[in-house]
């Protein structure tokens, strides 16, 4: 064979000493260092020169311990290694070493005693890269574990098929499914039956878009409640395994509740606003029909809008819950100068009577008309006029609030005031209140002033103290 011929040209087969020398010299990736029993270097191969930076002639006879770091030397590591090698036949040397230029590398090797007892041989490789990679991996895994087990989200690892490979302790404690039970598609047991289909289908989309995203209900084992979660997963940036995905499930139960409530509130607000606009429109048209001039229209319409504005303010303040009758009356009277502060001109008396918020608007409009009329023609215009407003609760099984508006000392005009105004106020009291509130009303123009009685439903939820 040609190779045999070549190897044999001009030479005899190598002796075992030569063979050893050849191996040592050609093992350039390995540092092979022989030392006497005091640690002085007696042999230094090419690999040792490359790894440690010392040339053979500059280190021969020198201190072999120089390859250790100063800390290890101070701690007696070289001596311990030699003692161990002498006692056991070998000592592992896995540690950071130092080169001639002071840089360090992770050396992995063995120290063995020479058979003739003349010293030791050390064989060592540079495994810095592997060491660094392992450390990095360990750090990343520790970081992942720390993150995955500390955040409130339920964390999992999965295949792109949706098959779970891992679930965080939060997942296990929230769902009550053990890690083993959750593996594969076992985790679907925690998903609400109605949400299983969309949960599974989202994995098909995820493989196309590169992101898994679904909102579904997961059952909390503690109380059996299904709580809304948003579950998101993405491929982990794992180059070794592109099929490895990481995901989280976040509890969004409260948020969804708030969103629902907000939707209802917005619809309610829109409803109220549109109704209010419709009401303003109808008041404008009604005022227009009964006005003989634009000036008259402006004054009447502004007054009615003002009353509507005041009652909106009260309704907003009590958040559209029950309203105190006294407040409705007081606010409207105050807007009509309240008798200009003349003592005893206006009196108000009655217990706390709570009215349903739905009554407030039309009642205020009615009181506004009574007050405007009194300011313009009646008790609040004439010096001798008096206005007594009283209220009480009447009736047993279906109690009603009864409001009495009693003007006295008024010189009544022949035809009982302005026909247009009376028409509007009268219509509100005699028709609108019965139609809208099923109220009973009685409006009379007595010889000494206006008398009006309004009996209307009270708020059942919050009984008054009268």
């Amino acid at each position, binding site marked *: 064979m040609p190779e045999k011929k070549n190897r044999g040209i001009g030479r005899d087969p190598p002796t075992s000493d030569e063979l050893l020398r050849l191996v040592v010299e050609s093992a350039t990736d390995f540092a092979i260092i022989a030392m006497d029993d005091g640690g002085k270097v007696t042999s230094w191969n090419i690999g040792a020169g490359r790894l440690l930076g010392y040339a053979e002639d500059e280190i021969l006879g020198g201190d072999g311990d120089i390859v250790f770091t100063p800390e290890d030397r101070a701690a007696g590591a070289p001596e311990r290694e030699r003692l161990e090698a002498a006692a056991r036949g070998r000592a592992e040397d896995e540690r950071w070493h130092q080169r001639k230029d002071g840089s360090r590398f992770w050396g992995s090797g063995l120290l063995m005693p020479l058979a003739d007892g003349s010293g030791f041989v050390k064989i060592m490789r540079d495994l810095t890269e592997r060491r660094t990679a392992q450390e990095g991996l360990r750090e990343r895994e520790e970081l992942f574990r720390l993150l995955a087990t500390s955040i409130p989200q339920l964390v999992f690892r999965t295949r792109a098929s949706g098959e779970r490979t891992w679930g965080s302790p939060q997942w296990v404690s929230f769902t009550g499914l053990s890690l083993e039970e959750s593996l594969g598609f076992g985790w679907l047991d925690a998903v609400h039956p109605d949400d299983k289909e969309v949960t599974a289908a989202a994995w098909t989309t995820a493989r196309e878009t590169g992101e898994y995203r679904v909102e579904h209900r997961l059952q909390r084992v503690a109380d059996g409640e299904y709580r809304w979660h948003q579950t998101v997963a993405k491929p982990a940036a794992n180059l070794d395994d592109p099929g490895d995905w990481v995901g989280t499930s976040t509890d969004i139960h409260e948020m969804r509740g708030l969103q629902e409530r907000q939707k209802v509130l917005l*619809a309610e607000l*829109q*409803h*109220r*606003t*549109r*109704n209010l*606009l*419709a*009401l*303003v*429109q*109808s*008041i404008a*048209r*009604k005022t227009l029909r009964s006005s003989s001039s634009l000036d008259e229209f402006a004054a009447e319409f502004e007054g009615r809008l003002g009353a509507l504005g005041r009652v909106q303010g009260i309704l907003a303040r009590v958040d559209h819950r029950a309203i105190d009758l006294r407040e409705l009356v007081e606010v409207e009277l105050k807007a009509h100068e309240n008798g200009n502060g003349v003592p005893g001109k206006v009196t108000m008396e009655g217990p706390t009577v709570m009215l349903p918020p*739905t009554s407030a608007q*039309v009642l205020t*409009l009615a009181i506004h008309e009574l007050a405007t009329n009194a300011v313009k023609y009646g008790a609040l215009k004439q010096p001798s006029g008096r206005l007594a407003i009283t209220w009480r609760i009447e009736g047993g099984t279906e109690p009603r609030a009864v409001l009495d508006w009693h003007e006295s000392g008024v010189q009544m005009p022949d035809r009982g005031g302005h026909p247009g105004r009376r028409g509007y106020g009268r219509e509100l009291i005699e*028709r*609108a209140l019965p*139609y*809208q509130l099923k109220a009973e009303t009685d409006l009379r123009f007595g010889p000494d002033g206006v008398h009006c009685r309004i009996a209307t439903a009270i708020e059942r939820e919050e009984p008054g103290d009268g």
Partner: protein
Amino acid sequence: MAEGETSALSGRRVLVVEDDYLIADDLARSLEQLGATILGPTGSVKGALALLARGEAIDAAVLDINLGAEKVFPVADALIKEGVPFVFATGYDHWIVPDTFSRVRRFEKPIDIRALARALSK
């Protein structure tokens, strides 16, 4: 108002269901001005069903959806049974309307009375 408009609803009998008096009264007057004869107005389901039970001829209806604590839908059901066309007048968005009435036309408040009249004259 132009002459064509005053007679747009001439001879048509229109049921008005609306719980706010001033809005109901305004709506009734406006439709009357366009020639309609008004049934009601009434502000409750009970009142509307009582009007229907009298068996008078009805050509069309305008229904406010929210009648205080109740919704107008039983009246809508009765009108469908009688074959009477109707529209909703409401401040609510469409999602409050059950699917069965999804094809019923909705007028948002405040109502454009001419557009309403055109719908009721068909």
